[in-house]
């Protein structure tokens, strides 16, 4: 038996790491969380919405005390070109009462709160410390090296929740090299407005209620990406995430892209006059199921973004992080009963995740990243067709409706060809089976 300072070392105080630490501390496990930032959340950027369910299972009714911005009652989806957007969405009062569905949050504040709960539960939190590498003895992870003097720490098990860069999983050879076609850069601004302005502009009655807008389509000029707007209490988060390979190939500067988004005629009225309070950037793992690494080794598990757990179709990530952190902790608790932290025992962690919606959702979309890489036009030409068709239908110009429908049909044929259309539909159907 080698040295041991703690039962478990958790690397990274994001949602995955803190969910793991919370479960462990509550079960009486001696757990340390190591965070490189000044405080948990200081390096983190929210590029989505915080879903209630996994967190609520962990800390019931957390939303009553956590620093959330607004609960989301309306989610809009826009297909946008340079001058138009075609809007779909759902607004429902079913999401306007407790326990709510999801929330807008600001991560620097939310994660800080979460870390307080984790410390209250009994975990030790160390900030301003970088874990530089895993310590491996006889093929087993026995601890981590940090950038502090005499900074080696030993434990039965290390849970790597060190984010998308995940140097730990990489150094253990669990993960392949991440290529720029499998990651997106998200850039974001927090634009300050008054509560009333946010309410009026987004059609909100009560300052507790919030709206999200996701935007894709031909305004991205053939790049694969998604823009978003989320209402906070007295600000709007506006951002755009684009596959890094596409930025490179289009000679595109991410800030220029964000600025043109802000000045789009559909977007501008929602944020005009607001003052930018913060500018942020973060990378999003978009490789999906096929990029998920083996998530365990002897004495080691990987959770959250570090395990590439992002569902980019439904912009879910932090909820998957919480779920994976919880399951990593539960796997540790089971392993502790037999005192066996071998790869074989910890492989139950990935099996558990396969049984939940986390990997089932990602598996469902497993072919999507490649499909969109092969057929970028799916994100441009079909949305453009829809925008044009809707514009035609809503334009009253004396042209009889049958003629309009013939024209739309003609456009469909000339742009895609019926065979091309059938092929695309078949490919999408086959890839999503």
């Amino acid at each position: 038996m080698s040295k041991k300072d703690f039962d478990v070392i958790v690397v990274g105080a994001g949602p995955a790491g803190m969910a793991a630490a919370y479960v462990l501390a509550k079960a009486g496990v001696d757990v340390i969380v190591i965070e490189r930032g000044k405080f948990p959340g200081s390096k983190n950027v929210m590029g989505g919405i915080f879903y209630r369910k996994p967190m609520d299972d962990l800390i019931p009714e957390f939303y009553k005390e956590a620093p959330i911005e607004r609960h989301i009652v309306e989610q809009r989806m826009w297909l946008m070109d340079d001058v138009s957007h075609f809007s779909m969405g759902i607004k429902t009062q079913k999401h306007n009462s407790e326990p709510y569905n999801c929330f807008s949050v600001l991560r620097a504040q939310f994660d800080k709160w979460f870390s307080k709960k984790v410390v209250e539960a009994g975990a030790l939190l160390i900030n301003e410390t970088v874990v530089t590498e895993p310590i491996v003895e006889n093929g087993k992870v026995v601890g981590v090296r940090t950038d502090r003097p005499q900074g080696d720490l030993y434990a039965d098990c290390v849970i790597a929740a060190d984010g998308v860069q995940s140097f730990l999983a990489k150094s253990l050879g669990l993960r392949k090299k991440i290529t720029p076609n499998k990651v997106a850069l998200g850039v974001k601004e927090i634009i300050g407005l008054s509560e009333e302005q946010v309410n009026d502009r987004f059609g909100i009655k009560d300052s507790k209620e919030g709206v999200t807008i996701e935007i894709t389509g031909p305004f991205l000029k053939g790049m694969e990406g998604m823009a978003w707007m989320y209402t906070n209490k007295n600000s709007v988060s506006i951002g755009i995430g684009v596959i890094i390979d596409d930025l490179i190939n289009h000679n595109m500067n991410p800030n220029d892209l964000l600025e043109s988004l802000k000045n789009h005629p559909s977007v501008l009225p929602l944020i005009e006059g607001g003052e930018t309070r913060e500018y942020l950037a973060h990378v999003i793992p978009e490789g999906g199921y096929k990029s998920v690494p083996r998530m365990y080794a002897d004495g080691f598990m990987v959770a959250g973004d570090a395990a590439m757990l992002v569902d980019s179709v439904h912009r879910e990530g932090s909820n998957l992080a919480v779920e994976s952190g919880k399951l990593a902790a539960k796997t540790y608790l089971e392993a502790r009963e037999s005192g066996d932290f071998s790869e074989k025992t910890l492989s139950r962690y990935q099996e558990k995740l396969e049984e939940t919606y986390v990997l089932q959702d990602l598996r469902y979309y497993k072919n999507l990243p490649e499909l969109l890489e092969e057929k970028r036009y799916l994100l441009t030409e079909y949305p453009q067709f829809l925008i044009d068709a809707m514009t035609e239908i809503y334009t009253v110009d004396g042209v009889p409706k049958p003629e309009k429908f013939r024209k739309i049909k003609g456009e469909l044929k000339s742009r895609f060809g019926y065979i091309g259309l059938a092929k695309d539909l078949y490919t999408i159907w086959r890839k999503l089976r």
Partner: protein
Amino acid sequence: MKKLRIEDKLYLVGYNVDHEYSHLGISDSEACKTCEKKQCTYVCPASVYSWDEKEQKININYDACLECGTCRFACDYITWKYPRGGFGVAYKFG
């Protein structure tokens, strides 16, 4: 809305700059001279990298880094580590 430059926006970001150590580097600066795209100079959201025509090298303004890691995915020659513990970007909102 007035277009904001990256420089304007970086003023809004909180940093704890490490004056002794750069966490960014380039493993082979010769490679930059023949690099056609020099993508690091435009994909970085903080404009950390700029091409110095006179010196024929990339200048790295590491204290503006937002630690997203885009550059390390965009170029294999960029050596990227986390800043030392406690240093670097510190978001207020996130």
